[in-house]
């Protein structure tokens, strides 16, 4: 038991290091986020009033799609080189190592997405009052989405062409996060309080923290042994 925290930090540091070595994989979802958001005014016209009204929803939907893009990479390389099997047969609790992996993944993908969102908010002329809501809701939301998405990634890691399938099985599970995240930003844009939405997002995150790593661990056992 005394050793499991060290496995946690070791996994965490290793994954983070790997993520920063493969900068392309880290940057691609961000570029997608940027380009996809730029497509919106091109499709709808540069009407500021309209953009302002749809910005909260569009920003959240695009952020959600961007997180889906990198999910397939979460376990892929570890599965290919056998690291996953090592983790599975190690005596340490799988729950903690899964948590470490997801945390590293979130720092490498979710956090940059959230840091970039204000810039895109400016492009969509989001009202200035909504930026704090946008960042804080994305901060909690991307963490919850990483945890839930990890289950999908673990289920499909044994498949050669798992990429599209992940989106298919994970997207319906993101529905509550999207609803409350986008609503927080929309309320803030109108000058209303948004603490309730953040509280619900926080509750979803806590539930995901408790349950998702367990499901991820179970799914990996199935995928790797099968």
């Amino acid at each position, binding site marked *: 038991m005394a050793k499991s925290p060290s496995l946690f930090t070791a996994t965490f540091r290793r994954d983070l290091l790997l993520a920063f070595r493969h900068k392309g994989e880290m940057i691609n979802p961000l570029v997608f986020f940027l380009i996809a958001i730029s497509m919106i005014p091109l499709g709808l016209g540069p009407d500021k009033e309209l953009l302002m009204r749809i910005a909260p929803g569009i920003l959240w939907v695009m952020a959600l799609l961007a997180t889906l893009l990198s999910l397939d990479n979460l376990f892929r390389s570890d599965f290919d080189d056998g690291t996953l099997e090592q983790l599975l047969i190690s005596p340490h609790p799988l729950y903690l190592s899964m948590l470490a992996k997801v945390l590293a993944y979130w720092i490498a993908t979710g956090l940059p997405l959230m840091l970039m969102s204000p810039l895109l908010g400016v492009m969509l002329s989001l009202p200035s009052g909504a930026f704090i809501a946008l960042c804080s809701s994305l901060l909690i939301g991307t963490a919850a989405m990483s945890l*839930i998405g990890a*289950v999908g990634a673990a*289920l*499909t890691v*044994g*498949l050669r062409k*798992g990429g599209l*399938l992940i989106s*298919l*099985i994970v*997207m*319906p*599970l993101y*529905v*509550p996060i999207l*609803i*409350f995240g986008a*609503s927080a930003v929309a309320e803030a844009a109108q000058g209303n309080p948004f603490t309730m939405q953040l509280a*619900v997002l926080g509750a*979803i995150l806590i*539930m995901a923290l408790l*349950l998702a790593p367990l*499901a991820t661990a*179970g*799914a990996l056992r*199935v*995928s790797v042994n*099968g």
Partner: protein
Amino acid sequence: MNWQWFHRLGSPRWFYEKTDAWVPWLIIFAWGLLLTGTIWGLGFAPMDAKQKDSYRILYVHAPVAFISMACYYLMAIAGAIGLIWKMKLPYMVMKSAAPIGFAFTVIVLATGSIWGRPTWGTWWEWDGRMTSYLVLSFLYLGVIALQNAFQSRDTADKASAILALVGTVNIPIIYKSVDWWYTLHQPATLKLVGKSTIHVSMLYPLFTMIAGFYVFFTLVLILFTRTEILRRESKTQWVKDLAAGNARKEEVAQ
């Protein structure tokens, strides 16, 4: 306590032979109830004062809506039993439940949107209930897609069981959040259809249809499972005997 019945339940052959006698009766009961309820609901139930005759869609919409939700839980429970006790039969039930549940959500969405035309004036309304069922149909599609993606049947079973369980935890949250989302965005014009008081004579055909759809669901689940059993046990002697027996019967007929 005697656990023999429980282990028997895990035997596909026992299930197949046991349900052999049930199927004709279930067909008679299910279709009898459904046809009675349909005729009753279409022709003999009194007209609703507010929604006029279009409320008669309720008789096929509401029972299916309820069962399509219950079916997801049944699928997840079957998957959990399969994972915990490592039995073969629950996985087959789980695999069979997915397409049935999906077909039921299609019924709910289609009848709901047809119903929406005379009541709300649109074919599709992002109403809270309808949106929940749309998401539910996506959850079914996910399980079906995952089930079909794997080469190994064992992996496919376990993986989709885990997905179904994850979905089960999510369904109440999805349901609540979509409900909240709808009350937030609900346009005032849609509130014009008030609550109608349901007359008792409208309820009898509804109960008939609910019972009918429950028996029908049981029947179809058993039929799908039986086919799945044959496919998976095709290498076993009893299925070979069954096929050979069929063959012999036809030879005699010729």
